[in-house]
């Protein structure tokens, strides 16, 4: 069998290829991004969606038709996809639907450290969690099987450490070709009007009861006997830290984190003198186990924050609450030296703007020397937050408010905010600056609908940001190159801020890291004589 050193993300992609996945879709987000890129490299059909909600809906449609689909996102992306997710638990699927949600404990590259395990409980969906790349491979395949068997979406929860660590993976031979997709009408199962949704909710709970019983004997909780004194219940990579920190302890490694095999945990806890639950993030397992009347020790609240590692696990086990050594303070990341956003931030600073910001490389503009951002909350939030500020601030301050957003983020969920801007314009108007560098830069230069290229960089339909703004009825729409004409950019922004009108300024200049590749893709498309690029007409 082929053995390879793979990251957790690459292992999930290999499982998708070997498990006969018809379609992979998602939105880039660290640490999940590489899954679809690797799946595409393995000749899987992989595509970027404008956002996670759309991705999940595309995956759901494929799974309704009997196909196997995988949908990838980071933890905060699951918030965006939560609306279809909860009702997909009612409708179920005919093929298989695996939702990969990559959490980021410690926030290596995220705005919060929410624990996606709560979603499995809230939506009522099975959730698996791997500890390393081999498990990422095995459990992604298991998730496809589980989904098909129980006719339910299954969540595969990953964490940054598992996504981005490499370890050895042995791949299995490709499974038999999955069933050929076809449409079968099943209105009561797929159309969630209340009359059909009420029985669907009952069906979901029945499935979960069966799953709960199945979980007790499924090979998804590994019991390692120890010396009988200390017992550890752990999930994900924490189970590996635990084996290293306490080699003599008994260990119950949970790979199915919802529903939990509570009776197995009860027996495990009874078999040791002291039983400790080790988990990163929220005390999800500890709370559930305690609610079932099983006496276990949970970590101290201080360990709810950040990643766990071997030294922190040793501390938890030793009940050591002394201050932890401070993490080394290295050099923070910054805007690239030749980043086209430098003149934008120096202008915003010079004009004394109040900046409602968004998520991407450009968020780094908040750091010195510019300190050029006043809010950053969620993907697409710059529009709504900027408008809210404009609505209530005294006029002299309201007129300084600017929303800034990147091109990929604009397409993701900024678009909705632009509709709001036109629908409920503040009395002072508003100014949106779209920082269009022609790529999803922060996550590693992925394509998006505004680049006019698919995940594998082939030409496709191209969304025009300025065309959309004009079509929506924004009064002033301009496109400028902030590097070629920084003075012009400053004059334009000052003028738009002085008007009581709605303005969109597209600051367009390719990302310095992506520029060479973008030229290469454009050249390849031109050489292929591509006439199949239906650009959205500028209105």
């Amino acid at each position, binding site marked *: 069998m082929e053995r390879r050193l793979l990251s957790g993300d690459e292992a999930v992609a290999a499982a998708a290829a070997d498990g006969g996945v018809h379609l992979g879709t998602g939105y880039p987000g660290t640490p999940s991004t590489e899954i679809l890129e690797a799946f595409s490299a393995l000749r899987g059909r992989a595509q970027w969606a404008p956002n996670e909600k759309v991705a999940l809906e595309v995956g759901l449609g494929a799974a309704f038709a009997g196909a196997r689909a995988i949908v990838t996102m980071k933890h905060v992306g699951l918030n965006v996809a939560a609306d279809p997710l909860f009702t997909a638990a009612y409708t179920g699927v005919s093929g298989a639907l695996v939702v990969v949600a990559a959490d980021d404990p410690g926030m290596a590259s995220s705005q919060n450290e929410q624990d996606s395990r709560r979603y499995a409980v809230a939506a009522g969906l099975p959730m698996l969690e791997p500890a390393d790349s081999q498990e990422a491979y095995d459990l992604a395949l298991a998730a496809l099987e589980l989904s098909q068997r129980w006719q339910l979406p299954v969540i595969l929860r990953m964490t940054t450490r598992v996504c981005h660590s490499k370890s050895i993976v042995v791949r299995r031979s490709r499974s038999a070709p999955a069933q050929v997709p076809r449409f079968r009408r099943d209105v009561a199962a797929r159309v969630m009007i209340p009359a059909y949704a009420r029985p669907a909710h009952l069906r979901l709970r029945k499935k979960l009861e069966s799953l709960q019983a199945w979980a007790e004997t499924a090979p998804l909780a590994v019991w390692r006997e120890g010396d009988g004194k200390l017992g550890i219940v752990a999930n994900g990579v924490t189970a590996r830290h635990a084996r290293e920190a306490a080699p003599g302890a008994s260990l119950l490694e949970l790979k199915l984190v919802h529903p939990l095999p509570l009776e197995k945990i009860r027996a495990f806890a009874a078999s040791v003198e002291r039983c400790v639950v080790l988990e990163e993030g929220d005390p999800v397992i500890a709370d559930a186990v305690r609610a079932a009347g099983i006496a276990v020790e949970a970590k101290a609240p201080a360990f709810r924050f950040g990643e766990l590692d071997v030294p922190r696990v040793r501390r938890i086990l030793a009940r050591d609450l002394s201050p932890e050594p401070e993490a080394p303070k290295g*050099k923070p990341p910054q805007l690239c030296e030749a980043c086209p956003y430098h003149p934008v931030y120096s202008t915003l600073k010079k004009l004394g703007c109040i900046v409602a910001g968004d998520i991407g490389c450009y968020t780094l503009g908040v750091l010195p020397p510019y300190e050029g951002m006043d809010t950053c909350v969620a993907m697409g939030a710059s529009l709504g937050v900027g408008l809210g500020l404009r609505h209530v601030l005294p006029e002299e301050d309201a007129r300084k408010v600017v929303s800034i957003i990147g091109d990929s983020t604009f397409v993701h969920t900024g678009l909705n905010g632009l509709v709001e801007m036109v629908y409920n314009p503040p009395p002072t108007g508003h100014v949106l600056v779209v920082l269009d560098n022609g790529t999803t830069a922060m996550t590693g230069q992925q394509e998006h609908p505004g680049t006019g290229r698919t995940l594998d960089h082939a030409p496709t339909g191209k969304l025009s940001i300025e065309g959309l703004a004009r079509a929506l009825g924004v009064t002033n729409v301009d496109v400028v190159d902030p590097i070629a004409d920084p003075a012009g950019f400053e004059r334009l922004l000052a003028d738009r801020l002085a008007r009581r009108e709605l303005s969109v300024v597209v600051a367009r200049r390719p990302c310095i890291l992506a520029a060479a590749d973008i030229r290469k893709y454009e050249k390849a498309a031109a050489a292929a004589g591509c006439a199949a690029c239906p650009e959205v007409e500028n209105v």
Partner: protein
Amino acid sequence: MSDGANVVNVVFAGLGGQGVIKASDILADAAFRAGRDVKKAEVHGMSQRGGSVTSDVRFGREVLSPMVPRGEAHYLVVLSASELAVARPLLGPKGVLIPPDLVDEAALPNRKSLNVALLGALARHLDLPEEHWLAAIRAALPERLHEVNEKAFRLGRAAALRA
């Protein structure tokens, strides 16, 4: 017993763009080719933008946690002088520091190959056959860079011998 005692811990530290992750990939691959269990961990994302980057490689009979516990690195390879102080606490009391100035940068065939030169210095200390190092370097880099990097690797190894 999988208590980590049989495991070699190496930490690479430097700045985004210096090839920290490439260096750790090459070491992990060399150890993998030599038949060891290997885990490699790092955090990318924000660190791609010129900030501090570290990458951990652990190899041996069986590796459990992918992360080198702070203060337990056997080898610390530092690619940027500015990161020496930051990364130092990662190294164990008897650990070996491989600093960037171990290799004469002027003698390097290419400034970008410092990472591979420092791997050459590290190789002096590790029980991994040279054929696996060279195969890992070739697998990690495009063909036009093979010669330059093999030269850098040998230069680093010679420098470690002198030091």
